[in-house]
């Protein structure tokens, strides 16, 4: 691998042992993959920070690293194993776990990480077009590549953390233009809501499996000006969870005819296919669900406020609870607004959970059946927590709560 002068000095230890180790890992992994050089990054986003995911070994590693390491670039981290508003957790959490999770966060902040605790780092710092990033978190990776035109691979385990310390990552995969060519072309009907958008992502994930290039075409007649950002995020997140897709090239086409790109084959999907996809991913009925879970990936604050406003204005009180998971940075920068709102909503059957999610934590506790609008959650929750999932848009939950 060809290194710049600065990188060679980093590798020689001139920038301290942490940078040296980080660079050594990036070079070794890059060389094994066939990368020719490293590339400076603008933003690192670290995924494995939940104590449940990384355990004592991860805690030990992050603690020893934080003693002599600092981030060289803007850096954020993923949701935690416990909500930031611990007192409002639906399931009581172990004191030991809470304190260990706090130690992990303390180390991250000491290294210079922005207090973030979210799987939607693009809400904190929207990536620029063509910018190089080192992000973990599959849904954020798909969103950055697809909706922002930035370049990032899925940096697993401690790789994103080491990239944050080195300020660079290996130049390979999605960083190279030639890799960002679609392998499949999908022609799909226009999604009516985020669930249908998620189902398209699910079909993309099934179609391309491990291949990371998918091109989705919509018909303009049905779409108007395009699909809302939140639907596009759901699509990307589902594609990232059900396949290993890192780039979904979303195009609106007016004629309704998809063009083949290079050697990519064109596959056509009808509304009927979305319906049968919904049957495939649903393992329960909405009637059976004990809670409705929204916020996977984390809800943007504006969208959460829209839902909350609706609930307050209509005076809705949920018999079966509604859980919303929101980015942790809202609570870090809070002046009593969000924490007050969360407390106020509790007696309406709405639980707001900051900086965590049902996937990486154990907040689900004894919940057996859950409803969600997220196809990403529908992939992980049955596999990791053994719950059955009903997939539906939140409007169905609201409608039901309103009818006496």
């Amino acid at each position: 691998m060809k290194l710049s002068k600065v990188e060679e000095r980093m590798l020689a230890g001139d920038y301290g042992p942490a940078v040296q180790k980080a660079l050594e890992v990036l070079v070794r992994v890059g060389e094994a993959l066939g990368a020719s050089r490293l590339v400076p990054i603008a933003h690192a986003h670290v995924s494995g920070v939940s104590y449940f995911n990384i355990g004592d070994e991860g805690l030990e590693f992050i603690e020893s690293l934080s003693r002599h390491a600092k981030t060289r670039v803007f850096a954020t981290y993923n949701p935690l194993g416990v909500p930031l508003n611990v007192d409002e957790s639906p399931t009581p959490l172990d004191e030991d776990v809470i304190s260990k999770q706090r130690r992990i966060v303390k180390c991250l902040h000491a290294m210079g990480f922005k207090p973030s605790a979210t799987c939607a780092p693009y809400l904190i710092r929207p990536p620029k077009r063509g910018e190089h990033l080192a992000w973990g978190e599959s849904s954020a990776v798909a969103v950055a590549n697809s909706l922002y035109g930035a370049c990032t691979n899925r940096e697993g385990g401690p790789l994103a953390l080491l990239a944050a310390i080195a300020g660079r990552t290996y130049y390979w995969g999605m960083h190279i233009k030639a890799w960002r060519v679609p392998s499949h072309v999908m022609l799909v009907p226009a999604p009516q809501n985020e669930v249908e958008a998620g189902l398209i992502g699910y079909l993309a994930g099934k179609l391309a499996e491990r291949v990371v290039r998918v091109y989705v075409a919509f018909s303009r007649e049905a779409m108007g000006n395009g699909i809302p950002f939140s639907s596009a995020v759901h699509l990307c997140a589902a594609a990232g969870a059900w396949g290993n897709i890192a780039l979904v090239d979303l195009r609106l086409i007016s004629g309704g005819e998809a063009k083949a790109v290079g050697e990519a084959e064109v596959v056509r999907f009808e509304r009927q296919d979305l319906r049968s996809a919904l049957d495939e991913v649903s393992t329960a009925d909405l009637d059976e669900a004990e809670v409705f879970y929204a916020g996977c990936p984390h809800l943007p604050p504006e969208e959460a406020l829209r839902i909350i406003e609706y609930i307050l204005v209509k005076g809705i009180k949920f018999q079966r609870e509604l859980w919303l998971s929101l980015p942790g940075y809202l609570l870090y920068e809070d002046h009593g607004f969000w924490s007050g709102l969360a407390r106020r909503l509790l007696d309406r059957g709405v639980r707001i959970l900051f900086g965590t999610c049902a996937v990486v934590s154990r907040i689900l506790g004894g919940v057996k059946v859950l409803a969600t609008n997220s196809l990403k959650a529908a992939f992980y929750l049955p596999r990791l927590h053994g719950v059955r999932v009903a997939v539906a848009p939140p409007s169905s939950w609201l409608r039901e709560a309103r009818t006496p």
Partner: protein
Amino acid sequence: MRRLLYHLRGHVDGAVIAPLVVYKSKLSFYGEVNREAGKLPDGRSFKGRILVIPGTKGSTVAPYVLLSLSKRGTAPQAIVAGEAEPMLITGAVLAGIPLASGLRPAGLEELDDECWCHLVVKGAFARMTCVCP
């Protein structure tokens, strides 16, 4: 007595002479490995031996586990894999465990726990000479 020679791909430098422990399926360091004793899922110990595996699978926590093994002194002397995935390389670099890859399935078949090997990894190249009964 058989003498065997392998030319491999180097990932983490080092030179060791040690007996082998050959595990024939892909190993997940997180969940499958006993950290306190340094043991494989079938109970065999890899502590102080060269661990030979076709590859690794599963969790991205693997690097942390390798680091923890080396801190406890229960890590293998070196790892020789059929295929080295990014998480295995990351773990081996962090834990300072010599690592080589590119061992063919046939090589995995002819080696066993009775073999003693001399592994030298330097840069992109590695060489393992083995003596098996």
